[in-house]
């Protein structure tokens, strides 16, 4: 190919974007690698689609399209460009560039119905879904693992655990439903003897867990027991969800972790969190049969898990010295009590500030207040000033 051919291509480019006239050296740089490309016509056909949206994006496209065509078919090029423009619309140039950079992961997997799902992609419907569950405001945010501070459900930014996109989407729903249930079922605020009933400002659970020699192990045990209780609750509350995720939940339990009679307490509990056997089965260990009856009883609550945690802790501690404690199953997420308490503290502060604002506004409307404020203003600045009350 000669310099003339590049020039022809540049002129062709100008006709595609007419009447605009960008710098010739920019255009030449963008198209020169394409002169020999057998799919040149298909590549150029997308230029009038992208150029009016963003000139920079169009240059990026010309620079990346040949690499993309190694992974995708020529006939899929318009779809790839459309998805790129969708990303541009939502997240701007940076998001579109990110999308174009990894064609295999961002596009090919999706075209083949496999691959990960990002929280940003499902948040549009997942947020109203969780607000429907919660019966009011509840936010969603991305984090490394799933947890909640009771005001926001934090979920992984991307889920790639399953090959199929549909399964990863359902996994988001499962994670969100579990985190909502922890709030709904009062997991973070069990009542302890001597504590005022319904007091949600206590940090009793943290004190309880800190009373063990290994607080983290106790927290893992308590959280797992609560996950099991929540699982039984969800089976009643959202039976369709639990039915449709049975296979998925089973797949999330590591097959090597449970080895018949030798299985540790945490391993058995993790497995039951996935399987949710509600009836005792043959071979089920006696201690677990007892737990099953306690956690499925009508009056089961977080206090049940507190009691069971006390009962099982020593055994779990012994076992933890002998073998590695597996990470909890994915849909369980993490127990982040500090986030919960911090969120409650913020909420309390907001209520207090609202109350103070409301009270000061009311006080200022009283006839006595006007005289008082005038009196204060007549005094030297700073002398006898009442803090927090400003004349409106």
């Amino acid at each position: 190919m000669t310099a003339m051919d590049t020039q022809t291509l540049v002129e062709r480019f100008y006709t595609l974007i007419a009447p605009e006239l960008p710098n010739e050296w920019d255009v030449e740089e963008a198209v020169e690698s394409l002169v020999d490309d057998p799919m040149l016509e298909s590549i150029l056909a997308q230029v009038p689609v992208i150029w009016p949206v963003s000139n920079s994006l169009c240059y990026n496209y010309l620079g990346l399209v040949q690499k993309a065509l190694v992974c995708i078919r020529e006939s899929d090029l318009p779809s790839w460009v459309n998805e790129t423009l969708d990303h541009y619309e939502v997240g701007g140039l940076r998001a579109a560039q990110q999308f174009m950079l990894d064609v295999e992961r961002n596009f090919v997997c999706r075209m083949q119905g496999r691959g990960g799902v990002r929280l940003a992609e499902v948040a549009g419907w997942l947020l109203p879904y969780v607000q429907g569950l919660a019966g009011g405001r509840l936010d969603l945010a991305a984090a490394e693992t799933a947890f909640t501070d009771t005001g926001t459900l934090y979920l992984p930014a991307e889920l790639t655990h399953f090959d199929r996109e549909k399964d990863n989407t359902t996994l988001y729903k499962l994670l969100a439903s579990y985190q909502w249930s922890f709030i709904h079922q009062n997991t973070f605020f069990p009542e302890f003897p001597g504590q005022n009933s319904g007091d949600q400002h206590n940090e009793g659970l943290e004190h309880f867990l800190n009373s063990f020699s290994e607080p983290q192990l106790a927290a893992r045990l308590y959280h797992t027991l609560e996950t099991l209780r929540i699982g039984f609750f969800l089976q009643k509350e959202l039976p369709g969800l639990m039915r449709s995720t049975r296979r998925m939940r089973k797949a999330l339990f590591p097959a090597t972790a449970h080895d018949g009679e030798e299985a540790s307490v945490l391993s058995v509990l993790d497995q039951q969190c996935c399987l949710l056997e509600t009836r005792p089965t043959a071979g089920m260990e006696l201690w677990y049969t007892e737990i099953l009856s306690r956690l499925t009883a009508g009056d089961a609550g977080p206090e049940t898990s507190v009691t069971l945690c006390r009962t099982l802790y020593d055994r779990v501690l012994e076992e933890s010295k002998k073998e590695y404690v597996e990470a909890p199953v994915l849909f369980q997420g993490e127990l982040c009590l500090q986030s919960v308490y911090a969120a409650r503290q913020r909420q309390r502060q907001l209520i207090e500030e609202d109350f103070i604002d409301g009270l000061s506004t009311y006080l200022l409307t009283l006839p006595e207040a006007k005289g008082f404020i005038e009196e204060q203003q007549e005094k030297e600045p700073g002398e006898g000033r009442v803090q927090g009350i400003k004349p409106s």
Partner: protein
Amino acid sequence: MEKDRLQLDEHRIVDEPYYLSTGSEIEVAEAAYREGLPLLLKGPTGCGKTRFMQYLAWRFERPLITVSCHDDLSTSDLVGRYLIRAGEAFWADGPLTLAVRAGAICYLDEIVEARKDTTVVIHPLADDRRELPIEKRGELVSAPAEFMLAVSYNPGYQSVLKDLKPSTRQRFVSLSFDYPAPEFEAEIVCREGGVDTELARTLVRFAGMTRSLKDSGLAEGASTRLLIQVGKLLNQGIDVNTACPAAITESLTDDPELLAAIDEMASSLF
């Protein structure tokens, strides 16, 4: 006169309509009726306002004349107008006049949708005068003791421009309606929709979830009426996973994300 009587007979409610009282609304309405006071029913769509009026009409043994108000509804549509037949002009009573003359119950559904001039005509009818002026005939019709005026509106989605004026509101005894408590609503769905208690409870739970979506842009959640419709589709052999989208989801919104969210709620519940 014979024609009017036949016309009114069509509006009589012979069989007792199913109505589950959840408060003191029947007692209040009865007291208002005895004292000749008009009723204002407020509440979301499909929560039982119209059914309540049907029940009252049956209970008071009065014909119920319902007018569904719309933005083209004028005073003439309510009071009446001169018509031409065989070259001669004759007067035809509107539904309001018909109800006043016959001592029926006149129910103006979604009153704020009607043109503003209509509210003027109901003012003398809604206070202690209980009179309907028919300007075109120079006639003043006094309402008999049996007559009752009732209006309804939905505060949830009325705009400020379409709100009722205080001078209108303050003529009425107001009854605020809302979706019944879950146990009552399940009973209604069970009875009216012909579904078993367990399914009725799940449907009510579903409706409750959709009613929490105001912050997400859904003006109103699933009404009791929609739940009953699901029940009726189920009775005809339609699968629950088909009946819910058809009778609820698609009736609530066209927004793709809200549709997806409501579908996911249904698939989680059923």
